[in-house]
């Protein structure tokens, strides 16, 4: 695939990180890759309590509201909302629960996609990474933060069936043994009881900015990044990159 060809970006999660990331991704596609697609996936709704950290034009499903907002300003990008929760392939009841629309990760992502997994739990991210691992050419960026000023991002990449960077579960047992649950695989009542926590706007925006920086280097500039994983702490004013590459870092992605 030519690096100048139109892309298909899939943003999973349009909340604290995803709503800021969407603003950056759509601008990148609009001017660098006109004719591209931005698919926004989220089963959750914007509520008034979200305004402290998230920007939205009206209440309602996050994917639909964010897509509606962006379509009006970016005519060279096809923006498609998918108001569904992402679940694993072996999750039962995908078609049977009309109140909680779902899509499996393997139905969602395809070869050559660039995926952004900015959901708020390890369980859902693991589902997306596992689906990506079955493909030959894929990029998955993820990021998250705590309730304070710490955050991290990770870039998983495969080219021609080879894992350029390691699956994040190789370095993070929290993916294989998540302390949380995928909201898409919870009941409506359980999901309603999830606390939003006390996240900070600055940290959400920083995660989005770090991801956009990685996209610029590895997708736009087509470079293999040594900075596969980055930890940051806005309180300490520190960031630290880690090389999780499986291949010689001097190689250039073809």
């Amino acid at each position: 695939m030519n690096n100048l060809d139109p892309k298909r970006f899939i943003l999973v999660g349009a909340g604290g990180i995803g709503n800021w990331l969407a603003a950056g991704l759509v601008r990148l596609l609009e001017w660098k890759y006109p004719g591209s697609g931005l698919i926004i996936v989220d089963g959750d709704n914007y509520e008034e309590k979200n305004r402290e950290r998230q920007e939205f034009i009206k209440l309602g499903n996050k994917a639909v509201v964010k897509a509606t907002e962006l379509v009006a300003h970016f005519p060279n990008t096809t923006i498609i909302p998918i108001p569904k929760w992402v679940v694993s392939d072996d999750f039962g009841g995908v078609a049977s629960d009309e109140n909680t629309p779902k899509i499996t990760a393997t139905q969602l992502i395809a070869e050559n996609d660039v995926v952004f997994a900015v959901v708020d739990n390890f369980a859902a991210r693991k589902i997306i990474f596992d689906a990506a691992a079955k493909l030959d050419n894929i990029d998955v960026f993820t990021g998250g933060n705590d309730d304070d000023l710490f955050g991290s991002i990770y870039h998983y990449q495969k080219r021609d069936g080879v894992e350029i960077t390691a699956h994040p579960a190789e370095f993070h047992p929290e993916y294989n043994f998540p302390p949380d649950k995928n909201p898409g695989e919870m009941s409506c009542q359980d999901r309603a009881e999830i606390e939003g926590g006390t996240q900070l706007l600055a940290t959400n925006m920083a995660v989005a900015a770090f991801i956009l920086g990685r996209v610029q280097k590895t997708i736009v500039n087509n470079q293999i990044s040594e900075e596969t994983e980055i930890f940051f702490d806005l309180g300490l004013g520190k960031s630290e990159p880690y090389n999780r590459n499986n291949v010689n870092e001097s190689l250039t992605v073809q």
Partner: protein
Amino acid sequence: MDTNSSSAQQPRANGMANLRYGVYNQPSNIAGKTVAEVRSQFSKIWGIPNDAVAYCGKDKMDENSVIQPGQNIEFHRRAGEKG
């Protein structure tokens, strides 16, 4: 937070190795010490939890592993979860 380990009680050591945890990255006089000793030394100043596994590259190190001079030791930090 003081990230300088020099004030901590120093078990035996005979050389430098590099130690990393999250945003922290510091050459330290830790060669010759065990992973458990290093964890104890840095746990308070860097906040390393007891369940953070130590790695040398992709090789998992157990608590009794002795750190060699020049090694790059990483206590894996849990990724950011929310968003």
